[in-house]
């Protein structure tokens, strides 16, 4: 049991105690909080609430150790959490970024309605399945030399464009315009680079997916129009990250940060939260390597967007540029941002683990086209449930360092999911609901069964009611490609 106090509707505080430098703050309704408490009771040592407390103990953390309603137990830090650290006095912590650096979602908007694509639905599903490399051991058609890998790490999505994959306009609609500036490829190991040589433009597996979706409901007509969305429209969402390269940057950094934690005599309550002062050589090296891996994920999603456009071009006979990037968000990231702390604007390193940036209207870094409505926040559901497009708000800038939720959040372990469902019946159930699943393994599909996740409608309602995001549209899954 972790002590929590209700401070507002859907807002809970974990009061400061022991070595916590700041309180914890969790955005959840009563049922979601009860589930978190139940988990804490069952597994007192390793649970999401305990992980939120642990992050609060890290040096230089500002205001709160935050968690969004999709929060669930992760490694080190909970998935669905945010920690903002003072640029001068704070740390960069492994567990708040994790292995799949800049895993994220890029959503493409097509000009088609469901009715227009329906006659070719199966053909499109098959074309996407053939086109998008996914699953264990899959490799892309692009073969990179080590020098080219360095270019990917420095240029991000621009590398894809320069090599004929993607559209220039996409860059306006990716966080950081698809390229982190302070990236240093020389800080990434050869092992990591070797892993990318044939993995650029691959989806991976686990919770990664490509999904063709239909806009089922428009909540805010004006914002939807500003984002170019309309009822019945076909969208495509690509969820994946920095592949083996990012995972290896993580694995390599774990060791380096373990040493740094000892060297700087930092207290970490969980070894997975090993860290380094941001201003130390180790901290800067880690940040630059994370930025390089972040660029790798940008490039990866841009190549996958290109492959998706190709499938639409072949099946639907349209031009590449008619499939536009709505927006791309990253989940496991470290970003230098300015936010108000105690009424002063401060430079912070905001580390988001399984949460996204969600800047409000008028914020810098929001594309000009969306300046009035705010940054699109894409929330990915499961293969059988809704996903959402929301927008960031002023309130989120004040309350959560401009952060929002990233998905539904798991509630059932993979081991339990495998005991509960079998992949074949999941595929059949979804087919009955009109959702075509093309997967590379039935086991992976069972692990990702919709029932293994929280109710996304409930989770999204919490942030919308709290004013952290505004609902724009809800989409339903239509075709799912899984690794």
């Amino acid at each position: 049991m972790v002590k929590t106090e209700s401070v507002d509707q859907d807002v809970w505080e974990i009061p400061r105690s022991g070595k916590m430098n700041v309180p914890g703050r969790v955005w959840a309704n009563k049922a979601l909080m009860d589930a978190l408490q139940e988990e804490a009771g069952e597994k007192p040592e390793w649970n999401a609430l305990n992980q939120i407390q642990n992050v609060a103990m890290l040096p230089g953390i500002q205001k709160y150790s935050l968690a969004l309603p999709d929060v669930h137990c992760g490694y080190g830090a909970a998935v669905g959490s945010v920690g903002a650290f003072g640029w001068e006095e704070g740390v960069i912590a492994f567990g708040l970024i994790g292995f799949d650096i800049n895993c994220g979602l890029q959503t493409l908007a097509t000009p088609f309605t469901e009715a227009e694509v329906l006659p070719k639905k199966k053909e499109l599903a098959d074309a996407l399945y053939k086109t998008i490399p996914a699953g264990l051991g899959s490799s892309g058609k692009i073969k990179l030399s080590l020098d080219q890998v360095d270019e990917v790490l420095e240029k991000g999505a621009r590398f894809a464009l320069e090599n004929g994959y993607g559209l220039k306009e996409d860059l306006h609609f990716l966080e950081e315009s698809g390229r982190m500036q302070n990236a240093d490829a020389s800080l990434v190991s050869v092992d990591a680079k070797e892993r990318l040589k044939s993995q650029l433009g691959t989806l991976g597996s686990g919770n990664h997916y490509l999904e063709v979706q239909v806009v089922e409901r428009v909540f805010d007509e004006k914002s939807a129009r500003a984002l170019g969305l309309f009822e019945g429209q076909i969208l495509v969402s690509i969820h994946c990250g920095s592949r083996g390269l990012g995972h290896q940057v993580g694995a390599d950094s774990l060791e380096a940060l373990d040493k740094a934690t000892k060297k700087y005599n930092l207290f970490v309550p969980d070894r997975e939260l090993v860290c380094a002062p941001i201003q130390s050589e180790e901290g800067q090296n880690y940040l630059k390597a994370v930025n390089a891996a972040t660029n790798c994920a940008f490039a990866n999603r841009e190549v996958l967007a290109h492959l998706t456009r190709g499938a639409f071009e072949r099946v639907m006979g349209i031009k590449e540029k008619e499939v536009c990037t709505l927006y791309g968000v990253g989940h496991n990231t470290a970003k230098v941002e300015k936010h108000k702390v105690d009424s002063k604007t401060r430079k912070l390193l905001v580390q988001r683990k399984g949460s996204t940036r969600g800047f409000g209207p008028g914020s810098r870094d929001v594309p000009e086209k969306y300046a009035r409505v705010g940054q699109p926040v894409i929330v990915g559901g499961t293969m059988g449930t809704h996903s959402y497009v929301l927008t960031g708000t002023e309130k989120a800038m004040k309350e959560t360092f401009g952060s929002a939720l990233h998905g539904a959040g798991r509630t059932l372990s993979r081991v339990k999911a495998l005991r509960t469902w079998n992949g074949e019946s999941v595929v059949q159930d979804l087919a009955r609901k009109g959702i075509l699943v093309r997967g590379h393994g039935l086991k992976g599909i069972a692990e990702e069964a919709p029932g293994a996740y929280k109710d996304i409608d409930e989770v999204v309602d919490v942030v919308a009611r709290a004013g952290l995001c505004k609902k724009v549209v809800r989409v339903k899954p239509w075709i799912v490609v899984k690794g």
Partner: protein
Amino acid sequence: MFELFEHQADVGVRGIGRSWEEAFQETAKALFSIMVRIERVKHVHPVRVQVRAPDLGALLVKFLNALLVARDKKGMVFSAFDVVLTQGKEDWALTCTARGEKLNVVRHEPGTEVKAASYSELVLKKTGAKEFLAQCIVDV
């Protein structure tokens, strides 16, 4: 013996053996059992993996991560592991000959790709006179 244990988002791998070496070997089998039907992986091609770490826990994590590097670089999966551990003055050294073959997407029935091994729920303990347990959470 090896087993997988529950974690909300990821998976725990656990190996139990009559020595640390055996516990490490079993944990490696648990790792690959997430990704493939390891009983169908022929242990024909040997790959050597060497790592060093200041303690046994970090050594286990580094070992599992090194196996994932070998998987990606060679496009192989493994089902048999011969581990030799040596304790030095300041650190531990591990040498492993992992045996396996190229991934066969039909025969091996690939499951979920493991991204990395973590320090989370990392436990190395002697559970009996001749029983050693090694475990950690792996990110999938």
